[in-house]
């Protein structure tokens, strides 16, 4: 069925380019604040590709939420302003737009195998600077930190080498330079 034009409900007919953006959101660490943020995304039909949240200041009772989202520039701008007007939100920064952000993610990955397969897994782990944090005679668990695409690549390489299970934290991100995020 062709979607009709002519209503606010069908604004995306032009298919503007979709880009990935990393948003840092400083919020009051209070009950329900995460539900407010993710409820905004589900309620308004925005994407969440990755989400991390943790307290960053115990005295200030502040938490930092990092969300990787994707959408046309106008939609990402909407997401930012919609987040900004939530009452417990202190500030929102689009780290992708500021262009100077570091992104890191931690992954635990389990691989099972013996013989040459096992040796190859270890060699790859070394090349990727993954650490062995658990081992049995027929398995390893690696810990690896890096940009998300490096982790993706490691998973691809481990797939034929007995990949069993993956656990990823999602992206943590911070802007370069001496300035902190405005609170």
């Amino acid at each position, binding site marked *: 069925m*062709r*979607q*009709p*034009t*002519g*209503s*606010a*409900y069908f*604004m995306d*007919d032009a298919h503007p380019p979709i880009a990935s953006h990393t948003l840092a959101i400083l919020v*009051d660490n209070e*009950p*329900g604040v995460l*539900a*407010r943020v993710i*409820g905004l995304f589900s*309620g308004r039909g925005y994407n969440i590709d990755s989400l991390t949240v943790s307290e960053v200041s115990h005295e200030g009772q502040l938490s930092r939420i990092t969300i990787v989202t994707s959408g046309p520039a*106008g939609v990402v*701008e*909407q997401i930012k*302003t*919609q987040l*900004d*007007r*939530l*009452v*417990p*939100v*202190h500030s929102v920064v689009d780290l992708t737009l500021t262009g100077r952000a570091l992104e890191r993610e931690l992954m635990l990955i389990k691989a099972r195998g013996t013989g040459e397969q096992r040796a190859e897994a270890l060699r790859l782990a070394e090349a990727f600077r993954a650490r062995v944090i658990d081992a049995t005679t027929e398995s390893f668990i690696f810990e690896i930190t890096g940009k998300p695409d490096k982790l993706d690549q490691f998973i691809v390489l481990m797939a034929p080498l007995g990949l069993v299970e993956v656990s990823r934290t999602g992206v943590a991100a911070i802007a370069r330079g001496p300035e902190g995020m405005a609170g």
Partner: protein
Amino acid sequence: MTPNSSETMTGAEMVVRALKDQGVAHIFGYPGGAVLPIYDALFQNEGPEHVLVRHEQGATHMAEGYARSTGKPGVVLVTSGPGATNAVTGLTDALMDSIPMVCITGQVPTHLIGSDAFQECDTVGITRPCTKHNYLVKDVNDLAQVLHEAFYVATNGRPGPVVVDIPKDVQFATGAYVGPENVVHKTYHPKLKGDADKIRAAVELLAGAKKPILYTGGGVINSGDRATALLRELAEVTGAPVTSTLMGLGCYPASGPQWLGMLGMHGTYEANHAMHDCDVMVCIGARFDDRITGRLDLFSPGSRKIHIDIDPAQINKNVKVEVGVIGDVAHVLEDMLAVWRASNAKLDAEALKDWWQEIDRWRARNCLAYRPSGETIKPQQAIERLYELTKGPNTYITTEVGQHQMWAAQYYKFEEPNRWMTSGGLGTMGYGMPAAVGVQVAHPDALVIDIAGEASIQMCIQELSTAIQYKLPIKIFILNNEYMGMVRQWQQLLHGSRYSNSYSEALPDFVKLAEAYGATGLRCVEPGDLDATIRAMIETPGPVVVDCLVDKMENVTPMIPSGRAHNDMLLGDASEDRIENAISDEGKMLV
């Protein structure tokens, strides 16, 4: 902070005290198990006057009517579980229409939360997406602060509803009370003044216009009387035509020479054409809603746009604008007028004259004309007569939702803000009568009329009992066409006149129904009886229900059919054939 002994009290007493300290004179509520301590505190302490409703939805709409007609926040008090869920419609309505409201809900005791206790529901979870903000208070020592914060959040920035959920044990517990003066919000500080460079850019753009238009909305009314005065001033110094959304009616007087009438789906021919053909649009406290814009890719294609809004999320949401000014309407207009005067700005008089000539040609279409009949009352005629016989600064109009609402918006003329209460964003049938009760509570001596339809009025009819109890002489003027008229109209235009479930079957006798409640019922059938019935309605003391039987098949026109642009409207004198084929297959999929 160490509270002195006089500031120690129970949570329930804090609620009453906080309401008093916030200057709340009336609250609308319904008791139940989880709010009994608060009701006890209301009984024992001097506090706001409580209006007992018949259904919690009624309480929320009363609070909305109260708020919209006074500019003060409306306050609701309901119990846990069904009390809270029944309030959800009104909360959503207030969120959509930016109405300041504080809704206090009882909750089961903290140790029972999460146990599926009797009358338990996840109130903060359910109301999170339909409030501006909400709170669950688990410690009595936080309660006073949260209550004051709730009023602050509800009334500052873009107004909206705030829920405070208070478990019963917190109501019983004793703690320290703090007054409103001690409460400063940590994060929420909306920007009132617009950026100076944006204001300069806006003035520059407007001053260079050849075909300007001021597109105003409910934000002007929310901003207060000063905003209304400044808007009228801006209209005067620029000479630009003024139109308004449904929510903004009254911010520019309908008798004003620059008034074009309402715009949008059922707006006037001149307002919509002027929007389409303008070269500079100033959107003031409105949000480019889909009922306003019609087909977006053809919306005012040749104009550059200025958008003034206190809510940054509205700028560039539906329509991209050249200049977005974030700030309170009154503050921004004041600064704009100052810059306008300081720079001796003036519109090109010749161009403006041509623009008005163009507008006059559209006006000459007389788009609100209709053909009166000798036998049946035309709904338009009923509203026109109602207006002529009831107009005045002390008259307040509320509506339900549907055809009658649009006819009221088109044919009732508003000179002042805060006189028109209607459910715009959510479109809630059942809004008007409780809203009228709320308005009458705030303005005991005013003439308050709910213009209703026979279907909508049945959605909150129980509040007639509230009106009787508190001797609130609201007048309910039902345009009875025996159909859910707007549904029927859409079925005619979009679904081959297959009137699926839109006939108001088994209608009550509204005259007897009014009498059963203790009100007065009047019926009007003949066009010749219209004036006498309206006069009787005004003169009869106490609540009156008028059952005005109108033409069953009348449609609301003008109409921008779904999927069409502003300059592509259906008019009332359109032929039958044009109406049947008015909407394309693509348009039929829109709402």
